[in-house]
């Protein structure tokens, strides 16, 4: 019997969480990708750039996590981590981000739906996170589709 996802989570907003971008985290992330771009790694190149500092790679905001129990959301959804696959991901970036900046992230579940594909019934959980800076400007929108093997 396939599991049933709880569509009651549609519209649910997670508590906002605050992240501060750390210089070392940008470098660690770029190195983990094997990306040697000096704009992410070389402080002097950053300082000489039009942004005055290092910038983060375009997928860096995947590191923005609330540090809480992600299992709690999965239990409410009616699944567990072993059934998850990453379906789609999108970053809409309105400006580069730099070390020392602090942002507020707000996540919302936009949709939960099911489809049957080649490999059987699948659930899709669509979430969006807005990232705002300390002047309340939105610097990025991050959209995420998780696939659940039902």
């Amino acid at each position, binding site marked *: 019997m396939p599991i049933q996802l709880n569509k009651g989570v549609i519209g649910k907003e997670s508590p906002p969480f605050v992240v501060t971008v750390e210089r070392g*985290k940008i470098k*660690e*992330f770029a*190195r*983990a*990708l*094997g*990306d040697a*771009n*000096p*704009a*992410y790694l070389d402080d002097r190149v950053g300082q000489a750039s039009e*942004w005055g500092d290092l*910038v983060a*790679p*375009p*997928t860096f905001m*995947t*590191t923005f*996590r609330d540090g809480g129990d992600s299992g709690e959301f999965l239990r409410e959804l009616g699944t567990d*981590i*072993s*059934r*998850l*696959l*990453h*379906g*789609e*991901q*999108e*970053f*809409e*970036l*309105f400006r*580069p981000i730099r070390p020392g900046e602090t942002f507020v992230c707000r996540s919302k579940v936009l949709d939960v739906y099911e489809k049957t594909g080649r490999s059987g019934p699948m659930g899709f959980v669509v979430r969006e996170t807005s990232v705002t800076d300390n002047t309340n400007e939105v610097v990025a929108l991050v*959209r995420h589709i998780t696939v659940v*093997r039902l």
Partner: protein
Amino acid sequence: MKYSKIYFDDVKVGDELPPLVKGPIQQIQLTRYAGASGDFNPIHQDDEFARAAGMGGVFAHGMLSMGFVGQAVTDWAGATAVRKLGVRFAAIVRLKDIVTCRGRVLGKSSKDDVNLVELEVWAENQRGEKVVTGKAIVALPTRG
């Protein structure tokens, strides 16, 4: 040339990005990416867990491949050029796979002094199977 400055004026529809070859994927890179990204799903680390989950063994984080695609785009357009990057994860990347990231210019537009280039982007494995497909929009400077 890598990190050379590219101008909006010089880009033509149909132009291809220089391919970026990554891998072979090793377990240590998945462990390193887990630490850097904060995604500690054991399905990317623990072969026994991944087999029990019906996945036939560990596989790479989708976000690692997306990061590779992002690198192919920023190597060409510059580290701060990306306005949008969106992908679908089409197939799983396994250990020892070689991932080649590619891109092609789909269109150009200019509005209010912002010059945007739309790209089709994708990554394929050593068998030519697409593992990531998507689109990117980059803002580029003009000459003069």
